[in-house]
């Protein structure tokens, strides 16, 4: 049987998962907090504009619905980027296995 470095494969897979998913979680947390901060700021600004009659009631109401729509889109974007991370991990695992297999028969 070819001499495959299983310990090395395990270690590389573990490192890959740690890097990919940690980066993803860190980025998601940062983006989520920023989104909340921006939405709160926008809400306060528009409420002020409405009170000062700078914008119509329709514009104000639409703006509130838009904030909710953007939150929905942000969630969808996060979901998509999570799927990208899983795909990256799968691709990484394939590369690790191919490299290990090629080394074993070299």
């Amino acid at each position, binding site marked *: 049987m070819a001499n495959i470095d299983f310990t090395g494969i395990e270690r590389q897979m573990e490192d890959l998962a740690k890097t990919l998913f940690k980066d993803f979680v860190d980025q998601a947390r940062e983006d989520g907090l920023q989104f909340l901060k921006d939405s709160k700021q926008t809400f306060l600004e528009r409420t002020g504009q409405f009170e000062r009659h700078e914008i*119509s009631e*329709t*514009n104000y109401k639409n*703006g509130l619905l*838009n904030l909710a729509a953007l939150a929905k889109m942000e969630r969808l974007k996060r979901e998509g980027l999570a799927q990208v991370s899983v795909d*990256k991990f799968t*691709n990484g695992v394939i590369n690790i*296995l191919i490299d290990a297999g090629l080394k074993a028969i070299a």
Partner: protein
Amino acid sequence: MNFKTNRQKRNGSIALLACVALTACSFISPYDQAAYAQAVTLKVDTLALIDKATGSYTEHAADIGKLNLALAKGYEYDKNRSHNEITRKMWEVLLFKNPSDPRDGILPRFFEEWKTAGTLKPAEIANDKQDVANAFDKIIQLESGKIRNAEAH
């Protein structure tokens, strides 16, 4: 009695993972340069049209029609890409009203507001531009975050 050595167990689990990895299909579509460029172009064109809302809606009805056609083409392109459901859903939040979800339809809400009011105030235009730009940015950011073909190999 434990018949399997640790080595055998480990080999088995790695072989299983390899099978899963090799047979797994992608969860999400890869990056598509045409889709990315299209979203960027549509964003710029849409924001340019929103800027014209200080003028009357009827005066710009032809421009609005042209933009809606371009947006429909962009949506159709992304809608028919495989494993691209999330991007499709994001376009739908931006482009279509949905009776079962009042949040949907950022852009139709803007056009209705413009049509009903006739013209819009600068502060209203600025708010609408901000929301539409943010919506496009989310679509663009997801596309930009997808795996490029060269990365996949």
